C-alpha cells in the first residue's frame, strides 16, 4: 500500500473533528483554546500535504502554513490575554459563567 494524499487528509479530518468536539464539549476556556489549536494544526497538515503532493516547486501550502502558525500564535496570545482580563473580573474560567449574551 502506497502512502498517499488521502491518508494525510483523513488524518487531518479526524484531528479537525476532534478539535470541534473539544470546542463544543469543554467547559474550561483554556481547553476551548487548546481545541482551536488542534483544529488549526489539522488545517496545517492539509496544507503541507497538498504542498507535498501537488506543488513542490513553489510550496505555497507551506508558506500558508507558516502564516497560519503566526496568526495562531497571535490568536492564542490575545485569547489568553482576554481570558486573564475576564478572570480578573469574574474569577472563573468556566464558560457557563460567561452568558451575558443570553436572550
Amino acid at each position: 500500500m502506497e502512502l498517499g494524499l488521502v491518508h494525510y487528509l483523513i488524518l487531518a479530518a479526524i484531528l479537525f473533528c476532534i478539535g470541534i468536539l473539544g470546542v463544543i464539549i469543554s467547559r474550561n476556556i483554556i481547553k476551548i483554546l487548546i481545541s482551536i489549536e488542534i483544529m488549526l494544526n489539522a488545517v496545517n497538515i492539509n496544507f503541507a500535504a497538498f504542498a507535498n503532493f501537488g506543488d513542490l516547486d513553489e510550496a505555497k501550502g507551506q508558506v500558508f502554513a507558516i502564516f497560519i502558525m503566526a496568526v495562531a500564535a497571535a490568536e492564542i496570545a490575545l485569547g489568553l490575554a482576554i481570558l486573564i482580563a475576564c478572570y480578573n473580573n469574574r474569577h472563573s474560567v468556566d464558560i457557563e459563567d460567561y452568558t451575558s449574551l443570553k436572550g
Partner: protein
Amino acid sequence: MEFFINNVWIIPALPLWSFLSILFGRALNVYENKYISLALTAGSTFIGFIFSIFILFYCINNAGTNHQYDILWLDTRDLKFSIGWLVDNLAAMMLVVVTSISLLIQVYSHGYMEQDKGYHRFFAYLVLFNFSMLALVLSTNLFQAYIFWELVGVSSYLLIGFWFNRPSAAQAAKKAFIINRIGDFGLLVGILALLFYSLNWWANSQNTLLEFATLGQAGSLALVNAGPVLFGFLTLGLLLGPIAKSAQIPLHTWLADAMEGPTPISALIHAATMVAAGVYLIARLYPVFELSPQTMTIMAWVGGATAFVAATIAITQTDIKKCLAYSTCSQLGYMILAMGIGAYSAGLFHLMTHAYFKAMLFLCSGAVIHSLADQQNMKYMGGLRKKMPIVAYTYLIGTLAISGLLFSGFWSKEAILSSLYTQGENLLLVIALITAFMTAYYMFRSYFMTFEGEYRGHARFHKPSKVMTMPLIILAVPSAITGFIFSGNLNLIGIKSFDSFVFYGHALHEAHTDLFLPICSLIIALLGFLLAGIIYWDKLKSLYCNCFDAIQRYTIPLYRLSVNKWYFDDFYNLLIKYLILPISEFISIFDKYIIDGFVNLCGISTLYKGKAISLLQNGNVQTYLVTALLSFIAVIILIFLIFII
C-alpha cells in the same frame, strides 16, 4: 371669472388649512387669542363666499356650465379613481348657500360661544365641517362624495357631542352617529352594487369611476344587468343614505336629540346645510333613481310621511329647539317628497329657501336661549318681543316664511304643491296641505309662546350682543326675498326663475296661471295661524269659550301620540332590547370562543414557539457553534441531495 372657476378648489382648501392651523395652533400653544381662531374660520369662509358669488354669476351668465377637473388618484388599468371638483349650476347654488350661512353663523358663534372654554375646539370643528361640506358639494364622483359624506357625519358627531361631559349630549352624538351609520351602510352597499353591475361599462369607457356626469348611462346598464327588482333594491340602498342624513322616517330620531349641541350648530348643520346634503345627494344621483319608478314612489311617500309625522310631533313640543328640529324634519320631508315625484327644481328650491329661514329661526332661538341663561322651555318664555324686538321680528319673518304665508317659503312650498297638483298625486297633495296647516299652527304657536303675552320665566334677562343680532338681520334679507327673486316674476340677477337655473333633464318652466292652489294653501296657512292665535295669543284668548277643554279631553290619545313622538324611540329601544341585543349576544359567543380562541391560539403558539427558540439563545457560545454547524451540515446534505439525486 375664469379664474374663480379654475381655482374653485380654494373654497374647500382654505377651511382645511384653517382647521389644521387652529388644531395645531392650539395643540402647540402657539396662540391664545380667540380672535385668531375667529379670523381664520370666518376669513376662510368669507373668501369662499366671494368665490361662490362669482361662480354663481358665472354660471348664470354661461348657461350649461359644467366645469369638471379630475386629479387621478389611483389608476388600475381599467378603473380610474380620482378626486376633483365639479362646478355646475347645482353646485354653484349649494356653494353660495353653504358659504353664506356658514359665514353668518360663524360670526354669530363668536357671540354665542365667547364664554365657553372650548372656543377654539368649537371653531376647529366648525371649520372642519365647512371643509367637508364644501368638498362634498364639489365632488365629481360618488367615491369622493362618500368620503366627504362620512367626514360630514364625523364633524356632526363631534359638534353634537361638543359638550361631551353632559351625558345627554354624548348619548345624542352617539345616536346620531349610529343612525347615520345605518344609512351610510345602505349607501355603501348601493354604491358597491351599482359599481358591480356597471363595472364593464366603466372599464370600457375609461371615464373616472362613478363620476356623476355619466352616472345615468352606467345606471341604465346596471338596470339591464341587474334586472328591475335587484336594481330597485340597489337604489333603495342608495336612498337609505340620504334618508338617514336628512332625517327621514324611519331614521329621523337622531335629529331632535342632536339639539343637544350648541345652538349655532343646530342652525348650521341640523337645519341648514348638513341635513340638506341628503337632498343634495339625491339630486346628484337623480339619473340613477329615475330609472327605478318604485324607488321614486317610495321616496315620495317617505318624504310625505316624514312631513306629516314630524309636523304632528312638532305641535306638542315645548322645547323651542325640539320644535324647530321637528319642523326641519318636516320641511326636509317636503324636499324628499318633491324629489320623489320628479319635482327636482322645486325640491332644491325649497332646500335653498329653507336653509336661509331655518338657519335664521335657529339663530333666533339661540339668541333667546342665550338671553334667558340656557332656558329652552317655551312655557317659561313669553313677552320677549318688547325685550328683544330684533330677534322677535326676524323670528316672525322666519315663521311667516316657513308657514308659506309670505316671503320665500311661500314660493318654494308653492312650487312643490303645484308640482304635486300637476302630477296628479292627490293623496300626497292632501297630506302636504295638512302638513302646511300644521306647520303654520306650530310655528305661530312657538312664536306666540315665546314672544307674545306675559313673561312666565324666572331667569334674569340680558340683551343679546350685536354680534348675535347682526347675522339675524342679514339672514332676514335672503329669508324674505330669495323666494321672490327666483319665483319667475322678476329678472333681477339674470335668471328668471329657479327651475330654469337648476333643473334636471330640460328646463321646464310652467307659468303659474292656476291661482286656485296658491290661494288654497294660503287659506290653509292662515287657518293654522288663526288656530295658533286663538289658543296661544292672549289678546285673542278672550274671544274663545271653554269649549277647548272638551276638545282637549277627546284628543288626549292623539296628544300622547304626538308628545311621545309616535313612540319611535320606544319602539327602537324595544327592538334593540328584545331582538338585536339577544341576537348579537348569541353571535358574540361565536366571536368570543371561536374567533378569539383562534386568535389567542395563534398568539399563544407564537409565544411558546418563541420561547422554545429562545432556549437556543442561552448566551453560551458553544451552543451557537453547535447550531451553526448543524445548519451548515444540513445545508451541505441538502446540496448533496439536490445534485446527486
